[in-house]
């Protein structure tokens, strides 16, 4: 525990040292703002109404971003689970869709962002769709592999217990895919944030990514740095939540219990 805190502490010390050194040379330096400046900015963004709009910027940005991320991940998980399961278990669906999904997953999502803007406009839909396009093929492929990995013995055993294909999906395959879905979501969180911030940076009026790219014009490191830290914390929190859910709800799948 102490050992894992060490790199963080070293990073903070290094920051404080260089910040202080630069500010001593030029009090107007904006690159490495002093902790007091950062604290004041955070206070202004989080706890004071914006003079122009009357909003609490940090919370509004957070809600906007998390909403986009939540909807997109929800849709991706639903699509990923149903398609992955179908591809993994039904040979005809696999023959039809597996190569298509494999090809889709190789398209760099950012390259088709302009298409999304042209087709669905600059609204929420474009940003959410970008995340879905970026994340879903990976989840589909992962879950299809996990489904195919289930031992054939299990399926045959279920058949000898009188299971129909539908019952095999419902009682044997699906319950074993839930923890795998959580794993797949955890792994795609990083990509989801990447696409979210990219989309917000290009066309948005609120959101964490939007804010960072907005204040970049004023070299406002005192905003950017806490925002980056906040995003990191949010991402970590989501990962932690998924991990805990998996351990609690699917104890049969966690090692060593």
């Amino acid at each position, binding site marked *: 525990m102490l050992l894992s805190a060490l790199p963080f502490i070293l990073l903070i010390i290094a920051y404080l040292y260089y910040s202080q050194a630069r500010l001593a040379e030029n009090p107007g330096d904006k690159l490495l703002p002093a902790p007091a400046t950062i604290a004041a900015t955070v206070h202004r963004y989080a706890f004071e109404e914006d003079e122009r709009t009357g909003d609490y910027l940090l919370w509004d940005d957070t809600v906007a971003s998390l909403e986009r991320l939540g909807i997109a991940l929800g849709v991706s998980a639903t699509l990923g689970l149903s398609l992955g399961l179908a591809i993994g278990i039904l040979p005809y669906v696999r023959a039809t869709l597996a190569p298509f999904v494999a090809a889709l997953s190789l398209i760099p999502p950012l390259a088709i962002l302009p298409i999304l803007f042209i087709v669905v406009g600059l609204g929420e839909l474009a940003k959410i769709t970008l995340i879905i396009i970026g994340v879903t093929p990976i989840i589909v492929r992962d879950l299809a592999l996990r489904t195919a990995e289930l*031992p054939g*013995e*299990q399926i*045959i*055993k*279920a*058949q*000898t*217990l*009188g*299971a*129909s294909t*539908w*019952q095999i999906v*419902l*009682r*044997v395959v699906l*319950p*074993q895919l839930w923890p795998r879905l959580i794993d797949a979501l955890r792994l795609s969180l990083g990509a989801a944030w990447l696409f979210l911030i990219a989309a917000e940076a290009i066309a948005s009026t609120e959101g964490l990514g939007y804010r960072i790219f907005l204040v970049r014009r004023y070299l406002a490191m005192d905003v950017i740095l806490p925002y980056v830290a906040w995003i990191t914390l949010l991402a970590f929190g989501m990962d932690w939540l998924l991990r805990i859910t998996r351990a609690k709800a*699917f*104890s*049969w*799948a966690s090692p060593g219990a």
Partner: protein
Amino acid sequence: MTQVTIKHLWKTYGEQVVLENVNLHIGDHEFVTIVGASGCGKTTFLKMLLGIEGPSKGQFLIDGEPLPDEPGPDRGIVFQRYSLFPHLRVIDNLLLGLELRGAPLTGRLFGARRRRARARADELLEAVGLQAAADKYPRQLSGGMQQRLSIAQSVICEPKILLLDEPFGALDPGITADMHTLILKLWNMNKMTIFMVTHDLQESFQLGTRLLVFDKVRIDPQAPERFGATITYDIPLRGHRETPPAPTGTLPVADAPQPSAA
């Protein structure tokens, strides 16, 4: 009453002949043990009984009807491994067969029907000595306990035929003896026909009422795939048909988690 009749059965994969000209009649309530060298079609034979492989030539009849081409509830199977469902507790693994047959749409039973099924499962759980482990997950069980559960899981569906594919091959010798007592007890309780593939000759003589040896009669050294195996010995044994079922209650099991008071 279950009769298995096999007439002039051949199984080939392309050029490769696996089984040739197998003829067999198995009457009701037999315990058939199957031995033979590796690659002599024992497992293929079992797969055909299971319905995941079809005969290439000849007839394979159960009660005069051709085998269905997929596994069904009249033929249970216990594999050496992987035949339990890791996401279900022991009791739910056992209930699964009853639930699947009782509820085609949801695969789950509720209320009074569930209680009835639960009572049946509890009974069987006790018969295989696993009542203390009812709420555990399969991977928390020892290998012997897993196999006992897997056997019980098949038996609860009351199959006409139970197929055992080297079920005790991965177990310690000490545990195997308990498993033999158990399987004979269940066999006598349910009056089913058992086909058991094994590598253990002693086991095959000890358990069976009928011992089948699969072997190749002809071998062409230049083309080993040209000739398949067939039944070279069909030995009737005394078996344990007369053995009265052990009194219900706990079995003497060596690997139970805690000795249960019964």
